[in-house]
């Protein structure tokens, strides 16, 4: 009876439909789970987590660990042989915490595991302080006192105890201001002088190669060089005084093992006492951290600091690519749809173009390296920049070649989208325009293309979304883990197409897989991923809504 009922139930097909529904449910869980995972991990990184003190005993010694809890998990005792030996219980589970202790310079590593069963006590000490440092990652400890070097180089106590924290904050603000000035001088003005000197050297070499280095020209170059050197000296002196100023203050702090360390303020970027912060205070801190993540340069082999150059590089590359791909894509689509004689050949070409979108991106990278970089770049160097040889100018991976490669990669996307837009425009409109005496190009320019512009936009947005997320080809044609300077700066010719650049996607790969301290860098990678995902999802949603609006619009025209 039951068997019969079951078989009837299966025959009705209901279970199969539910299985189908299950498949789509899995897909949905996967998509949103992944997005939420990235969102949560990426965004929680900037929240000033509470710092806890863990007390436990180990061979009659009392041990204190001051740390942030990064994650906790429950594991069966059987997999942990050392714990079993200590406590004798063989069954059940223990909870263990991965905690970030920071102080890499003192402890050797940032992270350690703590086992629940070993703990005596756990608390949140009020005055514990976290420092973000230029080197060695975070510092966790208690502030003791603030010192200042007098003009003789002697260390004088300025504040201690209760007054130490406000005084420290004030002085930290000052040292950060000075650091900013130094950075501005070094990167901006001194950088510009170095750049001009290098150009001068190349100019001289070029003149000598062409046999046009007259005495007069040589003299001019020499005087210019002398002037630049003088400016350089002056700036150097300026930075030196700033360095002296920044070296003035220092603090002493107690670490978790009870020892006291001295930290000069010039090594500190940010200081906070997370356990003393209110929720609005934390929120404020969060927003600031997020802002500096987006606007600052990376530090410590990209594992700390911000990702500004990567954002900038990605945006520059994408803009250049758009400038290259749009006209070519549109012209090709207009040719295929409006001018070419529709026949077997055009159909084959159309399929071929369509399929190029499916060719692996790394193949474009290999082509870009071989053709653009070595062939085109090598020839450009030989023709226009012989003075820099054997050092390559364009004969090496760089921004221009990356943009060109990605333009080629996204060309099919633009062509296909534009063609689709053109094909959706009702024939009657074209015929109406032609009947009124407009030429073909006038019809195209004034009637067809404006109507197809949302389709072109859709194609472009999809192309941009694809280019922004593409990493594999860029690894071959221009991306580096750390670019010394941005491709756009104040030095003539302002836009440096030959420079290598940083890229968000490559940043994720590099920091996640090639950095020496992956564990410490992981939150940063999540944050970078989140940023990239937000940009790309937003672009895609725009494209989808544009496409839908476009369809609606012409549906109305059709009727």
């Amino acid at each position: 009876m039951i068997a019969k009922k079951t078989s009837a139930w299966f025959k009705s097909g209901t279970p199969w439909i539910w299985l189908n529904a299950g498949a789509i449910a899995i897909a949905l869980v996967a998509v949103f789970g992944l997005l939420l995972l990235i969102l949560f991990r990426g965004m929680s990184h900037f929240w000033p987590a509470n710092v806890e003190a863990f007390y436990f005993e180990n061979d009659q010694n009392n041990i204190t660990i001051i740390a942030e809890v990064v994650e906790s998990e429950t594991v069966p005792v059987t997999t942990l042989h050392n714990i079993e030996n200590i406590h004798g219980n063989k069954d059940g589970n223990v909870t263990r915490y991965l905690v970030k202790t920071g102080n890499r310079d003192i402890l050797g590593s940032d992270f350690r595991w703590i086992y629940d069963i070993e703990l005596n006590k756990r608390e949140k000490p009020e005055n514990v302080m976290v420092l973000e440092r230029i080197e060695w990652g975070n510092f966790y400890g208690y502030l003791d006192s603030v010192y200042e070097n007098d003009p003789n180089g002697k260390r004088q106590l300025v504040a201690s105890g209760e007054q130490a924290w406000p005084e420290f904050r004030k002085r930290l603000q000052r040292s950060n201001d000075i650091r900013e000035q130094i950075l501005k001088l070094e990167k901006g003005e001194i950088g510009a002088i170095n750049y001009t000197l290098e150009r001068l050297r190349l100019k001289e070499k070029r003149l000598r190669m062409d046999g046009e280095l007259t005495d007069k020209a040589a003299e001019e170059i020499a005087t210019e060089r002398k002037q630049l050197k003088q400016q350089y000296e002056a700036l150097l002196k300026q930075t030196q005084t700033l360095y002296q100023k920044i070296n003035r203050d220092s603090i002493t702090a107690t670490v978790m093992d009870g020892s006291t360390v001295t930290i000069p303020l010039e090594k500190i970027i940010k200081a906070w006492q997370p356990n003393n912060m209110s929720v609005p205070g934390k929120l404020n801190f969060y927003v600031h951290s997020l802002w500096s993540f987006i606007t600052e340069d990376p530090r410590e082999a990209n594992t700390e600091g911000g990702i500004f150059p990567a954002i900038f590089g990605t945006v520059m590359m994408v803009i250049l690519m758009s400038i290259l791909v749009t006209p070519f894509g549109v012209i090709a689509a207009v040719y295929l749809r409006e001018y070419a004689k529709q026949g077997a050949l055009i159909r084959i070409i159309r399929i071929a173009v369509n399929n190029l979108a499916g060719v692996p991106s790394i193949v474009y990278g290999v082509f870009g390296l071989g053709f653009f970089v070595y062939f085109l770049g090598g020839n450009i160097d030989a023709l226009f920049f012989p003075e820099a040889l054997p050092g390559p100018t364009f004969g090496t991976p760089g921004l221009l070649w990356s943009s060109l490669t990605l333009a080629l990669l996204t060309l099919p996307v633009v062509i296909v989208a534009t063609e689709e837009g053109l094909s959706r425009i009702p024939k009657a409109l074209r015929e109406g325009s032609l009947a009124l005496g407009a030429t073909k190009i006038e019809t195209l320019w004034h009637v067809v293309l404006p109507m197809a512009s949302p389709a072109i936009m859709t194609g472009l947005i999809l192309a941009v979304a694809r280019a922004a997320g593409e990493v594999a080809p860029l690894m071959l044609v221009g991306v580096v883990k750390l670019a010394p300077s941005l491709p756009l700066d104040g030095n003539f010719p302002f836009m440096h197409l030959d420079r290598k650049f940083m890229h968000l996607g490559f940043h994720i790969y590099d920091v996640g897989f090639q950095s020496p301290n992956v564990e410490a860098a992981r939150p940063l990678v999540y944050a970078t991923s989140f940023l990239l995902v937000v940009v790309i999802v937003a672009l895609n949603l725009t494209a989808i809504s544009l496409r839908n609006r476009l369809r609606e619009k012409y549906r109305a025209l059709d009727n």
Partner: protein
Amino acid sequence: MKNQTLHTRYNQRAFKDRIARYFVASGGISVIIAILLIFFYLLYVVVPMFGSADINEEASYAAPGEGRTIHLGLEEQGSIGVRFTDNGHVYFFDTASGKIVLDESLKLPARISSVSSNLDLVVLGLENGSAMAVRYKFDLSYPDDTRTVTPRLEYPLGEEPLVLDESDHALSHIVIQLNEDGAGLAAATDDNRLVSARYLREESFISGEISTELASRSELVLKNPVTSIALTPTLDHLYAAIKGGTLIDYSLDEDGFDGDTTEYQFKHEISRLQLLLGGNSLMVGLDNGEVQQWMSVRKDGGRELAFIRNFHKNQQTVTYIATEQQRKGFAVSDTKGDITLYYSTSQRTLAHINSANAAIKQMAWSARAQNLIVSDARNQIHLYDVHNEYPEISWDVLWGKIWYEGYDEPDYIWQSSASTNDFEPKFSLMPLSFGTIKAAFYAMLFAVPIAILGAMFTAQFMAPRMRQTVKPAIEIMEALPTVILGFLAGLWLAPYVETHLAGIFTLLLILPAGFLLCAWLWGFMPNKSIYEGWEAALLVPVVLFLIWLSMQLSSPIENLFFNGDMRSYMSNEWGLNYDQRNALVVGLIMGFAVIPTIFSIAEDALFSVPQHLVRGSLALGATRWQTMTSVVLPAASPGIFSAVMMGFGRAVGETMIVLMATGNTPLMDMSIFQGMRTLAANLAVEVPEAEVFSTHYRVLFLAALILFLFTFVFNTLAEIIRHRLRKRYSGL
């Protein structure tokens, strides 16, 4: 007047129209050409690899200086040659003209009876049983930016001859190998004895004077005269060819012959023995013109020589085998004056020339194998220009099993570079193609059921309002940068799967079971029909719960069935090794990446099955499921097939996920718990490091071309099938 302007304006407009037409046409065509360029440029880089070599005579003249040539050598770029003569002279000469640059005479106590060389080190065996080692050197300098070569001689074992045979018999054959401590020498005497000796070498710090000390010497007596000998660089084997076609492998230790010998019988007389670069391969030249390659391999616990491959041309006796200095290639000469270039790994016969018309006596390569210098029986010198850049590649090397040096059997291996100089590059594309297919296969295993079942539900059963959000949501997945997926796969999923292995497999079983249970329970729900089409939404919390449940069950299951640790249990009990970054992780994440591709196309195909077909079927009394399986699915099947092909194409070309989520080891192992290296990931890793236009670079371009063609063909097929489908519907 007005008419006139109108007319001009009309002309102008027509002109503009024509210009625009040309502009658009040329622009459009050039874009299409640019796209074609990808294919042709890849081809342009790949093709030269399969061309043969080219050898041309550049100069020919009577041997400069006096005497009969006994040995030849060339400077790195082939501009200066060196010639050792039987009267103890060493002539350095300009190879283009034959003009003597330097004439050195060696201080020898007796006449030279034998000679052999090892790169620029020449050892001379004398008629009084002693030997002398000489090295020719070329110092480079650049006065006034012109390359100037200054030749000189050096005596690495001192200027005093070393007494090899104490009974003062002439040495008929001699070989030498230098190492850090000193040298090993071996010789055959004219009374059929073999002598082996080791010398320790000491260089005085103050005067730079070299003194040598005999460390050991041993000898044995042979029945027949020796025709050729060879000594391995490790000084542990001496190969001797004996008259009658016998090759004997003598094992050597610190004190000389240790009594261990193996004999190999050939059908023909052995005329020449020569070790290939690196000393791992013994080339045996026979009197029928054949050259055989033998290598020492492990067999039944011991080591013995094994025949690897042979090279054959004509019936003339092999007179000389000249090995290249940086590759595993060699030139073979014969009694008729034929010179043939071969390459060992690829077993290729590359080029052939005969311009001497007399037996060739000696040959020598320049360092990069661009020049070959030859001396014939008429004491004539010939200089050849050789273009032989890509001898390493053949169809077999790329796709077949090759017996490489140091391996015990032929195998598919990809290993493009190493730190040593005498490294044999291994360019088999098989492990990479295998890895590519493997990764794609596991990805499809995961993606195809979810994508197609999901598409079936979305297209036919889902409530329209839900479909409006679900479809774009899954399509957005396609735009997710794969670098992010790869990062999650490598740093989040791989460690997680490793610790929750049992849970992952539980999940695979528990999910379908859970769905069926839900379906059954749902049957008892009152007025359930208002939720029809929303089943998927109802199942989302179920999926979440089941995932949570199976992860919770993971460690109890491992405790219960696998002694607490599934990984070690598998490797102990089933012999399955577990890599943290393996095909399972790649399959899951890459499957996730291709789901939207397959889903989107399959859903389109299913959705565009005309509604009147569906309604007709339902009206005739078929259930929804019957309609799906017997009306919708058959109609949409070509579309679904093309969706799967597209998905496969995408999985094959995916780079970042496999780069980050596999160990990138080029293994040929189908196990789901092992990693792999794919063509695409290999390109990303190796292309930036490959030397431009080297064989390695071109092989990588070939890999790119294969990827290009593969995905292009796959996608084209899919596209054609889809077009067919569309045509069919338009008829309905």
